[in-house]
């Protein structure tokens, strides 16, 4: 049985329509006008124990609303959520015992105090046995090196340090499920890598179920096998990262440096998408044009100094999906 089951989840917001100007605001205070907005529109999915799932989608797609419903902050308008048999809002406190939540944009650490103080408090909030607390503190120090800044007030920490401490704090009570809301936002490359590595390790060693929301496709590629893409409140894709790459990443780009400036290249199936001096970026479909033939032809006609072939990055594919360039096939949606 899946650990998290979401069925036909819907969330409507009642928005207060405000009018412009002073008269307008008085008017809307006296005669409030409301507009319904459907933030989440009939989403269903299930997640098994130990899975790592990436939640992606453009801003305002309904990701955060979904996570807020899963964590018990918001009550669904309709539909069911079951987390190991509990309803996140009806059994809020019991459910909270098993959850860890990391909000990348907000810290749960006491701002003016060293992080260790918050950890000590969490120990009592989640009734963490002494032994587990010690074990986890040692583990987090080994992997995240938190001891080096544990005794500084949180307000003095760098964003990377704070994020590490925040993640450790959310994991202190060995939660069965962790929600990460943009855990790598604003971090530098090294800090990001550290966080991802840690997340992978915890998933592997403790079998913790994890859900991410992020805008960083690297986060997804490097940690999750499965991703759920949400747009305008509905699921438009639920499957593996590889699968989407295979199905939609069929174009290749050949970057060629020619000995002299060439004005036009006329090879069927090949499109010049960018040029800079003598360098040209040529796009083609891998199943229409054979790369070896293309290189041969170019060498024959113009001569080539240097060349590279680029695979499309997942980021590019996702961008196209958001912009409506790629319509996801219905059949793809339930592949896993």
């Amino acid at each position, binding site marked *: 049985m899946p650990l998290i089951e979401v069925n036909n989840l819907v969330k409507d917001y009642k928005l207060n329509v405000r009018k412009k100007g002073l008269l307008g605001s008085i008017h809307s205070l006296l005669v409030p006008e409301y507009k319904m907005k459907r933030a989440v529109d009939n989403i269903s999915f299930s997640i098994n124990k130990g899975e790592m799932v990436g939640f992606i989608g453009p801003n305002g797609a309904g990701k955060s609303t979904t996570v807020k419903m899963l964590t018990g*902050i918001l009550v669904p308008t309709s539909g069911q959520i079951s987390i190991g048999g509990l309803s996140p809002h009806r059994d*809020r406190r*019991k459910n909270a*015992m098993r959850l860890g939540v990391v909000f990348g944009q*907000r810290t749960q650490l*006491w701002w003016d105090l060293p992080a260790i103080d918050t950890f000590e408090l969490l120990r009592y*909030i989640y*009734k963490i046995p002494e032994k587990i607390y010690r074990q986890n503190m040692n583990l987090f120090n080994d992997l995240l090196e938190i001891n080096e800044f544990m005794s500084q007030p949180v307000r003095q920490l760098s964003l990377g340090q704070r994020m590490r401490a925040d993640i450790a704090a959310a994991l202190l009570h060995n939660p069965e499920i962790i929600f990460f809301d943009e855990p790598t936002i604003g971090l530098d490359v090294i800090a990001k890598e550290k966080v991802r590595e840690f997340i992978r390790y915890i998933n592997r060693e403790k079998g913790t179920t994890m859900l991410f929301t992020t805008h960083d496709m690297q986060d997804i590629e490097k940690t999750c096998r499965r991703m759920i893409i949400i747009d305008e409140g509905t699921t438009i894709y639920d499957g593996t990262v590889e699968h989407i790459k295979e199905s939609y990443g069929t174009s290749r780009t050949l970057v060629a440096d020619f000995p002299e400036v060439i004005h036009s290249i006329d090879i069927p199936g090949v499109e010049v998408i960018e040029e800079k001096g003598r360098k040209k970026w040529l796009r083609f479909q891998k199943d229409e044009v054979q790369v070896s033939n293309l290189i041969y032809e170019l060498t024959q006609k113009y001569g080539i100094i240097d060349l590279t072939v680029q695979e499309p990055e997942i980021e590019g594919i996702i961008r196209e999906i958001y912009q409506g360039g790629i319509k996801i096939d219905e059949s793809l949606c339930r592949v896993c």
Partner: protein
Amino acid sequence: MGKKPLFNIFELFVLLLKYAKLSLKSILEYKFDRTFITIAIVCREMISVVVMFLILVRFVHIKGWEYNEMFFLYSFLFLSYSIFVLFFAGMRDFAEMIYSGEFDRVLTRPLGLMYQIIASKIDLSAGLGHGIVGVILFTKTAFSVGIDWNIKNIVYYIVILISGAVIQASIFLFASCFSFWTVKTDNLRNMIFFNARRFSGYPISFYPGIIQKLLMFVIPFAFVNYFPAQFYLNKAEINSFWNGFLYLSPAVGAIMFVLVYMFWRQGVRHYSSTGTSR
């Protein structure tokens, strides 16, 4: 349903102390600043006391009240306010929790919401500031106005101070509740609360009927200081009020808290169905 609670009373109490420890540590991070705030509050309040004193010493008494009795009445305001901000500052500043998004975090914890709100904040500076003024007034007056401080009187005194604190906390929480509907009410609240409090600096018998009624039934400050003080002073004018009012402060506190708590629950329900502003 016979559900076993996640925490027993003892655990909740220990946890409350842990929260208090962190609050105090946070305050100590800014020792200098906080000390100054305390001093500033003491000065501000003492000035009003001194001004009142200078006016009152010119009279032997006003409407049968001599100035020691007036200051005894006044001391209730300070001491109960001090208890209020020491123990219920979270209820006072609750609106901030909504605006900052901190309330979302509260909802993801395995603890009761009101428990977390009360536990998460202590305003030591204001508590001390008002407390110092209150203690000065109390010690200067309590033994010269003819009160027999026996056990019964001492116990009721403590109960009455706590009741006063709960009444004031309820007023503040009531105002904070509007932030669930993203309506800012801070200024309205301050206007109502602090003006009512200023009226309460004098016996309500000084005022016309409408203001008396207001202070008894709308913003019930009369139960924070006038009736409690009369319980001890027993001045003749009390006959113009129902005698039972002398004992009613704890009930008023309890009822107000329950009503405001119910309103607050409504707010929480609204919040989790809208997530406010967005």
